[in-house]
């Protein structure tokens, strides 16, 4: 194996057996096994075709199949795929938590994996104690933790509470401390599963920056995330999994656009709440007129949000509302314009479009909230998470995200003539 290849996977597969054992939550009762054994032997006595019957009791499921890839030293590989595509299973195999059923993986370096923030944190122990505990769990040596201790504490911003049990921490402090320990890991290969989605927006920025430093430091990183913006900012390469198979490995751009095109149908998420919630159903929602697909757009695009809802009953005075959220912060809300708003609507399907002036938005991961109301205060249905999409970075915004503010309003700043003092 050439020197610059740090991870190589050959024909890796993982099979799980579904069936009776998973019916009561994955583990068996001892009696089930005994009964099963007794039944099987009885059947064996009775009938000749016992093999056929016992096979029906369980069903094989390949969570991963025929996975082959190579990663070079210093590469940051993003792994994308829908829920259940096998991403986490792959990471678990790479971090040796579970064994592959077939195939072989060669790792040329010390691996540390971060599948969860704060694994092993003990609520009764103090912040200080938990740093040592969590560090050891993540594979750091005591001397290493000691050397980085101050840095970790400063990063987590918990100096004052170091000797307080973490059960008294706010959830934000807890997560910051946990991430801070993890962020100071220095393995040759780092495996990360969607753990960047923690803390407030500012802390997320800090984490992202830290990850970028790690990646630039020549370490190899494997990274699973649903946040395509983050993925684009961090990864030098991306791989896409679909139903346990590796369907693409190559440039991040291409992987992301393939993924976005594939996920047309799965864009809807969230549920309606409120008094009218059971009268409305979201049939589809997506971005149209974008180059990269229904959940990705560039700032040069002029996309519209297309949505279709179904009303189960007529509504006398209907008004649709769309809101935009960035990292959980509501940026703006738009109601149906005059003339359309508060018009009666029959039961059945209803289509609407909403323009999306992306030139005023900064790059990032956005969520669309969708609601209806009938003009009476308090009578509404609201889905705060109808879909999410990403606005990709462009040359202007690159690296400036933190300085852009929440929105870019069309303000103009002009310089007037210089009056000379001379």
């Amino acid at each position, binding site marked *: 194996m050439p020197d610059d290849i740090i991870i190589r996977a050959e024909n890796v597969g993982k099979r799980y057996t579904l069936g009776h054992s998973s019916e009561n939550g994955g583990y068996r009762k001892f009696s089930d096994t005994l009964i099963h054994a007794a039944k099987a032997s009885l059947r064996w006595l009775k009938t000749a075709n016992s093999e056929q019957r016992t096979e029906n009791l369980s069903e094989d499921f390949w969570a991963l199949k025929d996975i082959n890839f190579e990663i070079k030293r210093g590469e940051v590989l993003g792994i994308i795929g829908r829920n259940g595509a096998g991403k986490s299973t792959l990471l678990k*195999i790479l971090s040796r938590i579970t064994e592959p059923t077939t195939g072989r993986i060669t790792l040329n370096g010390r691996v540390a994996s971060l599948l969860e923030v704060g694994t092993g944190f003990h609520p*009764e122990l103090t912040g200080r104690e938990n740093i040592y505990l969590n560090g050891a*769990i993540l594979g750091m*040596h005591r001397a290493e933790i000691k050397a980085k201790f101050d840095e970790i504490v400063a990063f987590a911003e918990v100096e004052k509470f170091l000797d307080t049990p973490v059960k008294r921490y706010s959830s934000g402090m807890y997560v910051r401390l946990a991430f801070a320990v993890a962020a100071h890991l220095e393995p040759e290969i780092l495996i990360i599963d969607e753990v960047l989605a923690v803390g407030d927006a500012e802390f997320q920025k800090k984490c992202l920056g830290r990850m970028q430093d790690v990646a630039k430091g020549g370490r190899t990183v494997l990274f699973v995330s649903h946040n395509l913006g983050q993925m684009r900012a961090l990864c030098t390469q991306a791989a896409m999994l679909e139903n346990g198979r590796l369907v693409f490995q190559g440039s991040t751009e291409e992987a992301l656009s393939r993924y976005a095109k594939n996920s047309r149908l799965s864009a809807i998420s969230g549920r309606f709440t409120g008094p009218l919630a059971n009268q409305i159903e979201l049939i589809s929602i997506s971005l149209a007129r974008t180059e990269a697909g229904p959940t990705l757009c560039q700032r040069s695009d002029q996309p519209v949000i297309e949505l279709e809802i179904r009303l189960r009953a007529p509504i006398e005075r209907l008004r649709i509302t769309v809101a935009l959220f960035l990292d959980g912060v509501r940026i703006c809300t738009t109601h149906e314009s005059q003339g359309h708003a508060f018009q009666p609507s029959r039961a059945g399907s209803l289509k609407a479009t909403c323009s999306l002036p992306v030139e005023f938005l900064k790059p990032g991961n956005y969520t669309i909230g969708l609601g209806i109301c009938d003009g009476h205060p308090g009578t509404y249905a609201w889905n705060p998470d109808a879909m999410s999409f990403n606005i990709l970075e462009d040359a202007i915004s690159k690296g400036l995200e933190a300085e852009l503010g929440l929105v870019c309003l069309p303000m103009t700043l002009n310089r007037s003539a210089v009056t000379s003092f001379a």
Partner: protein
Amino acid sequence: MEKLIIEAGKSEAHYWRDLWRFRELFEVLAWRDISVRYKQTYIGAAWAVIRPLLTILIGAGIFGGLAKMPSDGVPYAILVCAGTLPWYFFSNALSESSASLVGNANLISKIYFPRMILPMSAVVVAFVDFAISMLILVGLMVWYQFPPTWRMLTLPLFTLLAFLSAAGPGLLFTALNVKYRDFRYIIPFVVQFGLYISPVFYSTTAIQEKYGDVGRMIVAINPIVGVIDGYRWAICGTTPLHWQSFVTSILLSLIMLFVGVWYFRRMEKTFADVI
């Protein structure tokens, strides 16, 4: 540079090396369990003394005071103490190590390390309790003005034996517990029965007097009997060691240890999938 190959069924090769490499994690986990054990209790580690002390007083009161069982010529409380302390160690180690994997399920499903670390550190925690409870023995010996002999020096040896006899069933039960949660209910039962079928409140010489050598050998099928007999021999020092039953007990402990390690290793690969 470190090179690692992951393949189905290949984890055997570097297992024991890994176990050594992860010793720091072992220390940290044991330290965590010890420091958490008596957090937010009022009397803290005194619990490690009070529980066995009450057991000793009740045992000595009923078996020595009321039933007037023979005591080999030593104060009955000391006889019971020499049985209760190793028994408490054994039963604590057994119940805590068998709960250790399920209790740390989050670690198992998120982090790699040789899983044997967990039950082993649980045994270490039980050992710390045991070490504290030795104060009772010292206290009783002072109270009854019972002088120690050179045999006391052999206690570490029997303690090691107690370690081994707890580790075997501990490993076996904890591995079984991952897959069959029935063992969560079986273990308290085993511990409860064990207190009576093991010679904790009475001496094995009492059994021999009544049922002869056969009876004594039958009792020795219980691995902890060797340990308790050893303790009595070292502390009370009145009766010679019954070699046949002692050796039987030790052999059984070793067999249990072997079976425990074997089964644990066999099931270990599936823990993360099953737990």
